[in-house]
């Protein structure tokens, strides 16, 4: 328990700027090394050093995020274990993606509430006075987690996971009966049967994973990207929507270098606003990162607010972007309506429908009502239906589902390799345990119960 490796986002999510994913434990270095592409291998790196590179998705080989990685070898670290901290440039999506990749690594699991602190204490890094605080932390957080888990346990998601577990446990019970009652007249377990059961469980897991994205929209808001050429007033628009002054607003093109996020509710619709650096070619390295990031944000967005200036004609870049966004949910915001008209509105209408054009003056705080009702129209028209769907949204759940999927895949592969059923059972059992972790169920005697309720055995 103390000797496995844990990971979690250790900065508050949602704030702009840098987020840190902390990984601690014996596999911290060997686990992160293969997904961190850099000039140096972490295994060879000195302790207390910082390295620039990319987190890559090992399945696709694609770059997930540009990061700075800090390496601290135990015992000279906060937890006294090997610690790797991944500094991601920011943004909820990017950080969660990184965490997702980290948790796919063998031997790394999500940290429990207060677990870094607990380890620090158990390894002698924190003094006695803090012990009580640690206990409070564990208790309060896990109680909260428990009540959340219980709420979920009554929900539709847990029903589906339970059904999924039932498929797996029936397979397990069947294997066990073949092993423990070899002379009993129950159907002999065949590779084909194991494959069939595993395939059907995998298909269900895939369905659940697909809902992950839909669930994200509702839980985390409609991912909304604000795009446009530099200095059309994107940050000002965002500020108006959030009534706060989070992004830097200046007249110098390119000052918004990060994706900044804000959570707002418009007519009851949750929006997660991503303000982006202006999308244009740039030679400034730092800014280019921001621009790249904007393009990524654009890919992930559910809704795009395209800001144009009323007093500037449509440029070539604007046309290209509008063309690219043709099939997406786009609202074109015509800003600076208080200034003289230089924009050809008819041309804009060639790209988007009239209903998707909102005229505003952000500076004078005009047109917000129109924007609100347009978004609300767009998403109340049935493009997003929230009601009776099941969503997987929790990063931990997603990683456990993926883990279960991997175990089932291993089981199928093992049948092809001619591995005997009692060994294949090891893979099937870990799939069952991963699914159980989602529900917080103890493994306990339930397999034994299943064996005796499913099969008629005895002397």
């Amino acid at each position, binding site marked *: 328990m103390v000797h496995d490796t844990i990971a979690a986002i250790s900065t508050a999510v949602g704030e702009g700027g840098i987020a840190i994913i902390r990984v601690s434990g014996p596999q911290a270095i060997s686990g992160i090394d293969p997904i961190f592409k850099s000039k140096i291998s972490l295994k060879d790196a000195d302790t207390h050093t910082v390295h620039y590179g990319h987190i890559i998705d090992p399945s696709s080989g694609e770059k997930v995020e540009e990061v700075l990685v800090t390496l601290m070898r135990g015992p000279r670290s906060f937890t006294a274990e090997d610690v790797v901290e991944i500094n991601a440039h920011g943004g909820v999506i990017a950080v969660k993606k990184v965490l997702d990749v980290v948790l796919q690594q063998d031997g790394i699991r999500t940290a*429990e509430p207060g677990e870094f602190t*607990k380890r620090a204490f158990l390894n002698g890094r924190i003094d*006695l006075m803090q012990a009580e605080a640690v206990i409070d932390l564990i208790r309060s957080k896990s109680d909260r987690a428990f009540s959340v888990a219980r709420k979920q346990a009554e929900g539709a998601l847990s029903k589906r996971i339970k059904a999924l577990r039932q498929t797996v446990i029936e397979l397990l019970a069947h294997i066990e009966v073949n092993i423990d009652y*070899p002379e009993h007249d129950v159907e002999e377990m065949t590779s084909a049967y194991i494959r069939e059961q595993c395939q059907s469980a995998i298909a269900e897991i895939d369905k659940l994973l697909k809902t992950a994205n839909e669930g994200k929209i509702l839980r985390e808001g409609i991912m909304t990207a604000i795009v446009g050429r530099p200095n059309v007033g994107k940050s000002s628009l965002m500020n108006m929507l959030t009534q706060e002054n989070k992004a830097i607003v200046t007249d110098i093109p390119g000052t918004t270098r990060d994706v900044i996020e804000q959570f707002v509710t418009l007519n009851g619709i949750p929006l997660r606003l991503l303000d982006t650096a202006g999308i244009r070619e740039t030679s400034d390295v730092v800014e280019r990162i921001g621009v790249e990031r904007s393009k990524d944000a654009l890919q992930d967005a559910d809704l795009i607010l395209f800001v144009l200036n009323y007093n500037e004609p449509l440029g070539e870049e604007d046309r290209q972007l509008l063309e690219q966004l043709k099939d997406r949910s786009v609202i074109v915001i015509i800003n600076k309506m208080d200034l003289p008209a230089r924009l050809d509105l008819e041309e804009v209408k060639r790209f988007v429908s009239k209903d998707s054009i909102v005229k505003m003056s952000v500076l004078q705080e005009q047109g917000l009502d129109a924007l609100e009702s347009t978004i609300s129209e767009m998403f109340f028209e049935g493009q997003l239906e929230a009601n009776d769907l099941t969503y997987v949204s929790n990063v931990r759940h997603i990683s456990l589902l993926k883990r279960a999927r991997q175990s089932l895949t291993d089981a199928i592969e093992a049948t092809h390799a001619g591995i005997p059923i009692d060994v294949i059972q090891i893979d099937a059992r870990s799939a069952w345990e991963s699914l159980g972790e989602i529900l917080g169920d103890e493994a306990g005697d339930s397999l034994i119960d299943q064996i005796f309720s499913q099969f008629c055995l005895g002397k």
Partner: protein
Amino acid sequence: MGYVAGEFDVIVIGAGHAGCEAALASARMGCETLLLTINLDMVAFMPCNPSIGGPAKGHVVREIDALGGEMGRNIDKTFIQMRMLNTGKGPAVHALRAQADKFSYQHIMKKTIEETPNLTLRQGMAEELIVEDGKCVGIVTKTGAEYRAKAVVVTTGTYLRGKIIMGELMYESGPNNQQPSVRLSASLKEHGLELIRFKTGTPPRVHKDTIDFSKTEIQPGDEKPKFFSYETESSDNEQLPCWLTYTSEKTHQIINDNLHRAPMFSGAIEGTGPRYCPSIEDKIVRFADKPKHQIFLEPEGKNTSEYYVQGLSTSMPEDVQLDILRSIPGLEKVEMMRTGYAIEYDAVIPTQLWPSLETKKIDSLFTAGQINGTSGYEEAAGQGIMAGINAARKVQGKEPVIIGRSQGYIGVMIDDLVTKGTNDPYRLLTSRAEYRLLLRHDNADLRLTPIGYEIGLIPEERYQRFLRKKELVEMEVERLSTTKIKPDDVAEMLASAGSAPLTQGGDILSLLRRPEVTYAHLESVSPSPFELTDEMKEQVEIQIKYAGYIEKQLLQVERLNKMEKKLIPDDINYAEVNGLASEAKQKLSVIRPLSIGQASRVAGVTPADISILLVYLEHYNRVKAARG
């Protein structure tokens, strides 16, 4: 009326499968030991099925043997059929099962006991425990004999307040119409132990000459039998077959028509029966859509005509039992020699025991076998040897021996019992073990013989043989890993194994990882310079073939062991542990786990509770260290 009858180091009450192992272990470890039984003709008697072994149970017999116990040797001498089960499956679940000549089995065991130094076998019914200052110091028998001892092991099986039930008939009795032990139950209660009522059952026995075997299928033993004991090298025992038949529609009809007379359903039985060994009436009610059930006909010995009807355990009235039997193909004209029955008995709630099987309430009092809520001869014997070992070590002032969950099925069973308790008679299943691949039939000696040697149950000579075997296996694995081959060297062999040809050279060991390649194949191209037995070759093959999976489990075991090594001081007051959930406080106070590992397996204790406990212990230790 009482008189002082003698003084011993250890007294074992009951000479069933648990009692025999306990007494032998204690005596062999140098303790003056008394083995008391209600009836000397019932030593090591098999009141139910005349067979030993099978998955998990057979593993336990191997473990008993590896520790220096008797069950394996005894069945090897007295089997009338031997079969290796699960041979089509992986090595971890290969399981030996024997049919015993049940009379020879008990006679040979009795002889062994009689001839063992330090061991006194005596007929007598223990009725009272003598407890002084919370410590058990002896017992008093029905005849007034007072025996004093430094430790007492109670193995009462199903005798404790036993009650036999057949249909409407009910009477106080031990198994097979033996005298039940009634007073001892009250004595255990008086001394504060909590008892529960369990139930088990046995099928009728029939006369061989009235069976029409032509309507059944033959089930012969293995041509080349293997043995339970690592010591047994050969046997000339003649083997007898078993026979398979099935219940018929008529059987099910008879049972359904007579359910009102079944004590299982009329409410006459209050004890909880085992789920894995239900009576035939239970099976037919619970699995109504199953058209027929298997019935095995098993000989009870060479010199008897009695056949055991496996699959037909029942507590139906005698007349219904006969009707049921005669509705089964092959048994149309059968004569029933003994009637099946259900038996209820008292058991000790096993969470009242330490992992050493000593009771927490009464010092130096140990319990083992069915009294601890288990079922099965092998489960009983496995606990028996541990209780005997630990009683002897207690007397000798040594720390108890506790087998871990990763070391043996014996460890899994005892940990389950004392940590989780059981709601119905507990049977071992291989699925109860987390590390099944490590707890194999073939490697019980590697796991446990060093322990058996250390505690004095394995003689020097046997231990040296074991070390030699271990060394040879290691040398052979090493040889294979360093033997280089070229594709041409093995082309013919691979073709004969139906395996793809090699494209480049490498070590010969990696070929064994292919499912279709066996050690015998390797041997044909690269014979070993060492003199290896078949058993050693099997070891080599398994260790190499399943190395990946074995390593994975070893890694898990390493983690487990770290938790098992974090000991909880015995003076811990859970009520004072700030932050523990109240359910955890209550459960932990009852179970009083020895380690964090054991604590984490207590039902109702969450990972958060374990975290808090770890923090508390660290705090506790630092305070203790600061005080010096």
